[in-house]
């Protein structure tokens, strides 16, 4: 038996994500496993609860993306209670979702994923964080990012009651409307957010795209998987983050399926492994062939790059320009380059900011017609929204009193769970040869999964700095023979 490497994301010490890499006798990678060692059982304890409370219960799955859980849950209730919310309510909900996507994508770029590029993948580990970004692009940027995050989050606080775990969603609408004063302030925020998104794309262009090393890293083979891609699209097959049909494209970019949320069980199944609490979704009509890519494997990917791959473009003008530019540089659609998730995230950042402005400029948003009271007997409902980290599915059944009898949740990051395993394994294989573990492994492996902005137990990326990793190389007796860490021990 060869050596064994444990990569324990220290952010997950209580156990949300762990990577085990096994080496063979030659010291090459025999296999790599990504494990999620926690399960909180939301689907089970939803049973017995009153359906209308679900939008207040399910956000507690994730305090980092509670907003999208709240909205997916609320949309599932619209379907369950057979009620169509008035248009102004839909505008308000989409505004909340757009504000959330904007601030969350920005957070990822500046605080988490971006430092790899802006500061550099091989920069000293202690500089690969938000402070390093600030040092590189200028001191005032830190304040600018914090200020924009605060203002955009304020939109959710005002409309949702609280930015962490908002509460305004009800089947048939929202509990609170928009005041003229708030609208004026939010419009200003949206306009500034568009400039902020352009500015962010500018940094990406200057720092990343003008650097051949980075471009080669993005288009290189270590970070590439030919998979299916999934995302919500509008009636013109443009990306929509709040509503629409689910579209799936093949690894060569043809439409494979397009379906209403209610039909998701005909298309998605989940595989179970004994060594992880997480499940592995795949396309039912292709089948589970293991942790492999290609057209014969049902593994699909979700989240920014997948959404752009699964669409025909962006519905807002500035984002469309960036969309075209991205695919031109990457050599066409679909792009399989995992690191291009960072780029796609910035295209969506711009889209979300533009969309906020569009929604706020729509006079309907000021209407006080924000609720339709359900009158029909509740039965079953599915709600899908696009979370920052991918397609998020809530599916409930109730008895005639509206008490939950079944809840099925396919949470955004879970959609990428198989692909994350594959990406980690490939990065490890690319780096570890003949038992040599070099320090570059740490960041290269980390970059492989950080591109997905993973959110395993649900909170990996909320704080300045990055997701630190510790790699321990153990011999067969379990003794640590080498320990590498990205941060200087304090």
């Amino acid at each position: 038996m060869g050596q064994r490497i444990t990569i324990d994301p220290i952010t997950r010490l209580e156990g949300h994500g762990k990577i085990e890499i096994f080496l063979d006798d030659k010291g090459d990678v025999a296999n790599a496993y990504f494990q999620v060692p926690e399960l909180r059982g939301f689907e089970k304890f939803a049973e017995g609860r009153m359906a209308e409370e679900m939008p207040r219960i399910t956000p507690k799955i994730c305090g980092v993306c509670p907003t999208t859980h709240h909205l997916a849950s609320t949309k599932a209730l619209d379907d369950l209670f057979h009620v169509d919310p008035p248009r102004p309510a839909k505008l308000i909900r989409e505004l909340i979702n757009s504000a959330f996507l904007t601030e969350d994508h920005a957070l990822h770029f500046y605080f988490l994923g971006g430092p790899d590029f802006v500061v550099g993948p091989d920069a000293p580990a202690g500089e690969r964080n938000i402070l390093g970004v600030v040092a590189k692009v200028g001191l005032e940027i830190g304040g600018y990012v914090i200020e924009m995050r605060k203002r955009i989050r304020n939109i959710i606080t005002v409309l949702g009651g609280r930015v962490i775990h908002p509460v305004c969603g009800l089947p048939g609408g929202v509990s609170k409307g928009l005041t003229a004063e708030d609208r004026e302030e939010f419009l200003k925020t949206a306009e500034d957010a568009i400039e902020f998104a352009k500015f962010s794309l500018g940094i990406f262009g200057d720092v990343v795209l003008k650097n051949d090393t980075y471009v080669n890293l993005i288009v290189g083979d270590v970070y590439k998987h030919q998979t299916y891609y999934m995302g919500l699209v509008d009636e013109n097959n443009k990306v929509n983050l709040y509503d629409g049909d689910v579209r799936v494209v093949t690894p060569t970019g043809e439409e494979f399926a397009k379906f209403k949320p209610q039909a998701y069980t005909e298309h998605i199944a989940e595989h179970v492994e004994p060594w992880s609490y997480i499940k592995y979704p795949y396309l039912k009509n292709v089948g589970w062939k293991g942790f492999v890519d290609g057209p014969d494997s049902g593994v699909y990917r979700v989240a920014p790059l997948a959404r752009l791959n699964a669409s025909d473009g962006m519905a807002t003008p500035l984002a469309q320009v960036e969309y075209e530019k991205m695919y031109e540089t990457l050599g066409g659609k679909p792009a399989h380059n995992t690191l291009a998730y960072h780029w796609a995230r910035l295209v969506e950042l711009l889209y979300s900011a533009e969309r906020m402005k569009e929604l706020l400029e729509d006079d309907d948003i000021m209407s006080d017609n924000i609720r339709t009271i359900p009158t029909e007997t509740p039965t079953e409902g599915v709600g899908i929204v696009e979370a920052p980290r991918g397609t998020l599915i809530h599916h409930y059944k109730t008895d005639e009193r509206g008490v939950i009898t079944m809840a099925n949740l396919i949470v955004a990051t879970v959609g990428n769970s198989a692909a994350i395993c594959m990406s980690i394994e490939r990065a490890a294989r690319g780096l570890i040869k003949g038992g040599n573990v070099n320090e570059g492994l740490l960041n290269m492996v980390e970059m492989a999964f950080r591109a997905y902005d993973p959110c395993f137990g649900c909170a990996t990326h909320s704080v300045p700095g990055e997701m630190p990793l510790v790699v321990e190389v153990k011999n067969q007796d379990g003794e640590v023979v080498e320990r590498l860490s990205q941060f200087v021990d304090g």
Partner: protein
Amino acid sequence: MAKPKVAIYWNASCGGCEEAWVDLNEDILAVADAVDIVLWPVALDFKKSHVEALDDGEIAVSFLNGGVRTSEQEEWSHLLRRKSGLIIAFGACAHLGGIPGLANFYTKDDIFEAAYGYLPTVENKEGTTPQLTTKMPEGELELPEIYDTVYPLDQIIDVDYYIPGCTVPADLIMEAVTAVLKGELPPKGSVLAPSKSLCDECDRNDSKPDKMEITELKRPHLTFMDPEKCFLAEGVICMGPATRAGCGQRCINANMPCRGCFGPTDDVKDHGAKFLSALASIIEINDPEEMDRLVESIPDPSGLSYMYSLASSLLARKRFERETVKA
């Protein structure tokens, strides 16, 4: 003088309590300046061994969020108790069990049966379930044990103070940090928030009739809620009378009733029971049949009144042979 050492740690939590620290915005820099943060897994690289290497009691204060439901979380809680002068249970889950504590209506087996069994997208003909150890061709993989029960922190270790809320508002965090730094703390066991009810400070108080009398209960999605009026007076269940103030009326501001994330006031042990008795005292129905109808209209009274506090209630969980907590 050396800065006081502070640890921030998470057990079975959602990450919202980590975001709460980040939402201090500029103030987080002031906090980071005044103390020496020796553990904050989301931001800093300290392994368990680093914490183990500290002297017992060397950490001035540890803020722990999340309930406890795995063997690993239990070990961490004991370790931090040993190393810390003060333990502060941070947020509703550490304080009361929180919403994940609703899992105490079921067992771990029930949870597995759903997650890996009957849910509609699961394809699992072999009946595979996650195992504590799995032999793979290359070696063995391990997972931590998940308990049947979610425990609030004080059922696992001795807790000095509590900061309530899902999640904790910024002003309460800053007040707690300031109190620790100045050494101006109330008696051990205190909840660091006002001990009055949410109703006492609610902006809708003036809309209350002199005598509250309700004859029906309305579920929030089935009625229009007047943004000025007391929810309970309108027949919409609001946990305000039994719930501690200090949240800033966040849900009320969104025109939604309280669900009790701050837990009960000082003199109350069982939050849900307190609420149900408060509710009973304002129901004005004499006809038994009408009373039955009212009771029937809220099909999940226990899930509603114990939404955040089931794990800390006198009942604690649905009865079954209770597992032994390993010390």
